Every structure is written in structure tokens, then in C-alpha cells.
């Protein structure tokens, strides 16, 4: 067992623990914070897997922007901050547990039995290579995605905009 293995075990265990926290905590802010941790650990894992650019993107986009968005969402929807017993749907809990555990068992069984190969750990950066590939071979999907983003931007604005002309007074 190498050092990297040990590090990775720790990381993955941490990942699972904080992600469990995301879905179990009864405090919305805590959930969001836990997600931050989850993502941070993911980024670390990516570093371990020599995908430093993706790790960076995760940190920048998710932790930097998406979480902020979430926090905004939490605030705007006036979700009760602090402890809230009603955050979870208790009726569903046991069933959900069964379902998710089953899925976990099935997935891990499949994964475990299918992929027993080693990870080829490379040294040195792959960012330069990534950039080249992204802007040469994958330039078209890249552009398409940018359009998707634009569309999402416009869509988000349209949806969220408070337009009295469009919304029936009675429904507000």
C-alpha cells in the first residue's frame, strides 16, 4: 500500500462523510457548507488523479459561484435558517434509504467487478494539453456549451424577473 492509496482512502471517506452531512443536516446553511466541503474534497481527489485543471474549475465555478447562487436561493425562498425539523420528508426516509442503499450496492457491485485495473498516475501538468484539445478537437462542443450557458442566462433572467404584466395579481 502506497502513500497515495492511504491519502486517497482518507479523502474518499471524508467525501462520503461530508456528503452524508449535505443530505442529512437539518440546517440549510450547514447543508450548503457541507456541499462546499464535498466539492473541495472532490477537487483534492482530482488533484490526486492528476486532473489539476478540472480541480481548479471545480473550485472556481462550484465553490466560487454555484454555492453563492445556492445561498441566494436559500435566502430568497425564505427557507428557515437554523435548525428545521421539517426540512426532511420523514415518510420517505426509510424507503429512500432502501432505494439509495440498493443503488449503492448494485453500483458498487458492478464497479467492483468490472474495473479492477490500476490508475496510471502521471506526473507533470496536463493543463496545456487539455487546452489544446479543447480548442482544437472539441472546439465545436465548446462553442455549443457556451451557447447553452447564454441561453440559461437569458432563461434564468426571464423566469426570475418580476413582471407584473405577466403575472396575475391574484396568484402572487
Amino acid at each position: 500500500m502506497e502513500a497515495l492509496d492511504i491519502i486517497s482512502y482518507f479523502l474518499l471517506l471524508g467525501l462520503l462523510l461530508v456528503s452524508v452531512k449535505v443530505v442529512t443536516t437539518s440546517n440549510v446553511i450547514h447543508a450548503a457548507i457541507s456541499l462546499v466541503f464535498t466539492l473541495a474534497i472532490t477537487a483534492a481527489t482530482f488533484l490526486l488523479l492528476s486532473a489539476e485543471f478540472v480541480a481548479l474549475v471545480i473550485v472556481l465555478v462550484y465553490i466560487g459561484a454555484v454555492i453563492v447562487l445556492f445561498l441566494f436561493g436559500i435566502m430568497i425562498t425564505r427557507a428557515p435558517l437554523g435548525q428545521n425539523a421539517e426540512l426532511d420528508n420523514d415518510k420517505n426516509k426509510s424507503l429512500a434509504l432502501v432505494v439509495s442503499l440498493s443503488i449503492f450496492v448494485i453500483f458498487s457491485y458492478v464497479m467492483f467487478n468490472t474495473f479492477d485495473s490500476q490508475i496510471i498516475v502521471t506526473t507533470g501538468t496536463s493543463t496545456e494539453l487539455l487546452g489544446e484539445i479543447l480548442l482544437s478537437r472539441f472546439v465545436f462542443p465548446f462553442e455549443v456549451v457556451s451557447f447553452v450557458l447564454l441561453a440559461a442566462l437569458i432563461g434564468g433572467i426571464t423566469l426570475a424577473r418580476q413582471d407584473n404584466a405577466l403575472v396575475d395579481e391574484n396568484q402572487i
Partner: protein
Amino acid sequence: MSAQPFLIAAAGLFSIGIYGILVRRNVVMVLLSIELILNAVNINFVVFNAMLGDALLQGQIFTIFIITIAAAEVGIGLAIVLMLFRNRKTANIDEFDLLKW
């Protein structure tokens, strides 16, 4: 370094995300759980990329795309939540039964 722990951890993350989707009442929380699932997928991609040693780094590129789409999804999703909240004065998903005819 074996790939199995990573994959199993991703499966776990995925299951946790599903659990979150199923039990959370607040829509924003559901969206958070979806992020978990996406993250699980991301991990898988990156692991497979490393495992296969792909020269084109397709796993990583896909991950970048997924992150981008996820960002867009969050933007739209939150906008929809906002809209729903404005109209229904609640963000609790079990108070919506819009999928029934």
C-alpha cells in the same frame, strides 16, 4: 493505486445524492443533492480518464462540460424555484403535485 475505491466512493456519492433528492422537502436542497449526483459522475469520468490514460483527455473535457451544464442548470433551476415560490409562497416540493393530470 487501484481505481475501485474511487468508483465505489462515486457510487456512494451518487446514492447519497439520490437519498437527498428523495427525502429533502426544500427544492433548493433537492438541487443541492442533484449537485452531489453530478459530482459523482464527474469523479467517475476523471477516474476513468486516469485509468485509461486517454491521450485526448476526454474524461476531463467531459467533466468540464458537465460542470458548465451544471452551472447553467443551477441557474435555471433556481430561477424556476424562485418563480414557484413567488406563485405558491412555498418552496417545499411535496406541496407541488403538478405532475398529476
